[in-house]
């Protein structure tokens, strides 16, 4: 299990030096971080929220959770998510994210999570800590369209790009070599109209092609040098840096996953801890006002642990069905988000364990520079070794990793 922990920590350190790069003076701040929505954390039962709002994916994301103890200890829960279709050969232009033609491939994510904590209610008891590995998938069945604000920003960007092409054509026509280029092109056309070319004509024909190519490339290279000075370039840059995808409307996501438990922390001794699938849907309000979400979730627990005087005892199979809702209030445009979620858990086909419920209040504050501070407080589902509702109280700092890039002045 050390190998897995070392892998995740190694991955973190691999990403960390990028944060420490030289700070460049900028006039535009870029905050791209979205709250992580990882099915791997959900199936491991350590997600801050069970009901996740939809988010546009990046090809790769890394989450670190439970950075508690005043952030003095190494976090014990990690997850990474990959959007395999966004890494593939097929490319999706920005405008192709505003329709449902490619929803599945654009939203499909695979996630893997690792945690080393005790069972619910006993997370910090060292003797009960076991390693768990979660694997999950998630994709959208119905994805909301862009908000009017996002579309407006995209239109501005597109107009700037049209202007860029107009500027390029105007530059070409004013270039000192343009008249000569035109002449050579016309000469080539004259030769083309001949039914056949003799040796001399063919030689001229080929020379003209070489000359035209050379001149086109020269004009292009010279234009590349002046391109950043143009008004259209600046307009496109401004439009691109303020662009942020926001969606509003009904959405429906499917998630599924499986968690493996390594009870004695040995790789060759594992069992399925939990498996399940769930639908998350609702109305996403585009980071404005109130968003309302719901969840329907089936979970299968092949083995359950019960507390006994002699220690933990293994119980039978247990299936649960959860349903619940979550309301999110965007207090200040994704800068400060308050939410409350409630879930009811029914136990299917068992009288040993009672139904349970969860109610968690959540606050998320965007610190800027790709950092978010989140706070959760509430009552979790009953565990099988602790009753009366486990307290959910955690503060997480979520940091976005990735290379800083200079912003042009």
């Amino acid at each position: 299990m050390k190998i897995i922990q070392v892998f995740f920590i190694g991955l973190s350190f691999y990403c960390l030096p990028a944060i420490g790069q030289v700070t460049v003076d900028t006039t535009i701040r870029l905050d791209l971080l979205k709250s992580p929505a990882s099915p791997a954390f959900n199936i491991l039962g350590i997600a801050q929220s069970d009901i996740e709002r939809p988010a546009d994916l990046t090809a790769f994301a890394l989450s670190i959770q439970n950075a508690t103890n005043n952030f003095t200890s190494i976090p014990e829960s990690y997850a990474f998510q990959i959007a395999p279709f966004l890494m593939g050969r097929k490319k999706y232009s920005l405008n192709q994210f505003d329709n449902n033609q490619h929803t599945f491939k654009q939203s499909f994510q695979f996630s893997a999570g690792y945690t080393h904590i005790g069972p619910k209610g006993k997370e910090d008891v060292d003797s009960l800590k076991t390693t768990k590995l979660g694997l999950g998938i998630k994709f959208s069945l119905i994805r909301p369209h862009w908000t009017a604000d996002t579309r407006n920003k995209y239109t501005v960007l597109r107009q700037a790009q049209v202007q860029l092409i107009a500027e390029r054509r105007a530059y070409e026509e004013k270039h000192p070599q343009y008249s000569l280029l035109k002449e050579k092109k016309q000469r080539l056309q004259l030769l083309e109209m001949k039914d056949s070319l003799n040796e001399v004509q063919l030689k001229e024909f080929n020379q003209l092609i070489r000359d035209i190519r050379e001149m086109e490339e020269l004009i292009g290279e010279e234009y590349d040098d002046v391109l950043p000075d143009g008004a259209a370039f600046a307009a496109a840059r401004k439009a691109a840096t303020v662009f942020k995808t926001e969606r509003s409307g009904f959405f429906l996501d499917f998630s599924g996953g499986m968690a493996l438990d390594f009870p004695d922390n040995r790789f060759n001794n594992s069992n399925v801890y939990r498996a399940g699938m769930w639908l998350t849907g609702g109305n996403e309000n585009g980071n404005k006002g109130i968003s309302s979400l719901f969840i329907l979730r089936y979970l299968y627990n092949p083995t359950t642990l019960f507390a006994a005087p002699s220690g933990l005892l293994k119980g039978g199979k247990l299936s649960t069905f959860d349903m619940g809702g979550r309301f999110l209030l965007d207090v200040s445009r994704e800068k400060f988000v308050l939410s409350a979620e409630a879930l009811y858990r029914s136990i299917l086909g068992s009288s040993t364990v009672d139904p349970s419920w969860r109610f968690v209040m959540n606050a998320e504050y965007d610190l800027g520079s790709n950092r978010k501070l989140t706070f959760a407080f509430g009552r979790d589902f009953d565990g099988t070794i602790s009753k009366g509702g486990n307290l959910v109280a955690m503060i997480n700092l979520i940091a976005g990793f990735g290379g800083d890039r200079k912003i042009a002045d």
Partner: protein
Amino acid sequence: MSKKTSVKAAFEQSRSSHFDPYKINNSDKDIQVKVIPGDTGQSSVTEAWLEDKAILKNHAGPLDWLTIGSNQSLRGKYLELYTAVTDLPGQPDKTSFDFRIRGGVSPYKYYAEKTVTTQGASVLYKISIFFTIH
């Protein structure tokens, strides 16, 4: 006359403008062009002119096999195609331009790429094609 440019060669040359002849015949078969601009999440607009006549304006994203005329009708004409690719924050820094023609004597492919060093920067790609039977 037409050539296939390998990815390696394009990376080495890294030019944003290019010119090539494209060999056609005297048939009525359609000539089609395709453009795959930029990497995932980048914004692009493509416009095209055939002999100074605009045949494509303000086209966003990929262009999927646009018919621009028949072999016979295109003889001796120039196609000028421009694509503006803008890098978006959080998306890959590498912009690219993948241009293809089919319907003539043999398929043609040209690929070029440029990596931007500033957030939100744009790259303008241009390709000129001369349709010839020689």
